[in-house]
């Protein structure tokens, strides 16, 4: 995947295609559903889906916001709790295991979960002007 940085400020990252979590958003929830069109010759193949057990509860998010806000103080006063904060963060997020990978999965799971729970997009389809 090529990520090109535009020269001359802005700093908007551009990529032809999103990462796995973003791709999942699209291709599992959007697109034409084959069952609508094909009835007889449909092949029901098992789909591996994201394990809902690895979803981060919102209380954890709140606590992490609180910790991060606490850290704002530390920026101003010179910190003593940063290590603790980081420790708490990774513990919350990964619960052990291969950290980098698990965190990615968690983000994906979280995003998925937000959508499932009904934090859905509000479609604001505007009139076409062509």
């Amino acid at each position: 995947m090529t990520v090109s940085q535009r020269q001359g400020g802005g700093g908007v990252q551009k990529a032809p295609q999103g990462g796995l979590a973003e791709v999942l958003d699209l291709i599992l929830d959007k697109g034409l559903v084959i069952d609508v069109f094909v009835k007889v010759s449909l092949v029901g193949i098992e789909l591996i889906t994201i394990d809902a057990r690895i979803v981060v509860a919102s209380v954890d998010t709140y606590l992490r916001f609180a910790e991060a806000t606490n850290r704002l103080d530390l920026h101003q006063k010179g910190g003593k709790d940063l290590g603790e904060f980081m420790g708490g963060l990774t513990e919350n997020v990964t619960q052990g295991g291969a950290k980098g990978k698990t965190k990615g999965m968690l983000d994906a799971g979280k995003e998925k979960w937000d959508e499932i729970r009904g934090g859905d997009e509000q479609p604001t389809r505007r009139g076409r002007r062509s």
Partner: protein
Amino acid sequence: MSGETGTVASYVYGIIPAGARIPEGLTPIPGGDDDGGLGLVTVGELAAVVSDVATSRPLGTRKDLMAHETVLNAIAQSSPVLPMRFGAVVTDDDAVADELLTPHQDYFTKALGQMEGLVEFSLRGEYDQTAVLTRIVEDNPEIQQLRERIAGVDEDASYYDRIKLGEAISQSMDRLKEVDADAVLDALERYAVATVVKEPGGENGAVHVAFLVRSDHRSDFERAVDDLGDAWSGRVDLRLIGPTAAFDFLPEYDPPEGQS
């Protein structure tokens, strides 16, 4: 290679106008016993992009998912395409022609016509956490008080206050997201044919808006995105993904009365 269980079926990526060129060198979803690459099933003015898959294994590995998206996006660079949702598998190519394409020609043809010359872009923004939290705390006396009450108090003793603080911050952030989504629309909507405001995922998600953009307005659109990136520099990191197949803007399908 998987032995006797290895039945092969047709995986459908999407539908394009017959005669549209598929870029070469695209990697399909890992197939059955012998990988045949991408193929086209053509009926009249329509073609379905397909490849062989083994029915013996579940689909959904990272490779499978990325292949589906990559194939469709590559095609979308030069041709309108109606993407299927991931996991569309039909017994064989004949069924793709007879059950998918032939009975629904009118809808597919009309939908492809509507997507002609249009591509999707997805704009995602992430808050710089320190910047956004600082702003929320400064703007909000109640949050400021809570934070001061917690400062220096033992973690267990302040547990519920910390949840309260986090919740208040989360709510402020939600209000900020609404304001920022409106700002994105104000800045960019004029360059798009249609927009969909989506829930920004993740803890620091700020905005997520999908745009349907005319190919000939693409550079104007991208310039406006860059300007917004300049304006929000240090507060929101923007990422522009695309052009992609227009997953978010497919014309509605109304099954004709009486059709099963």
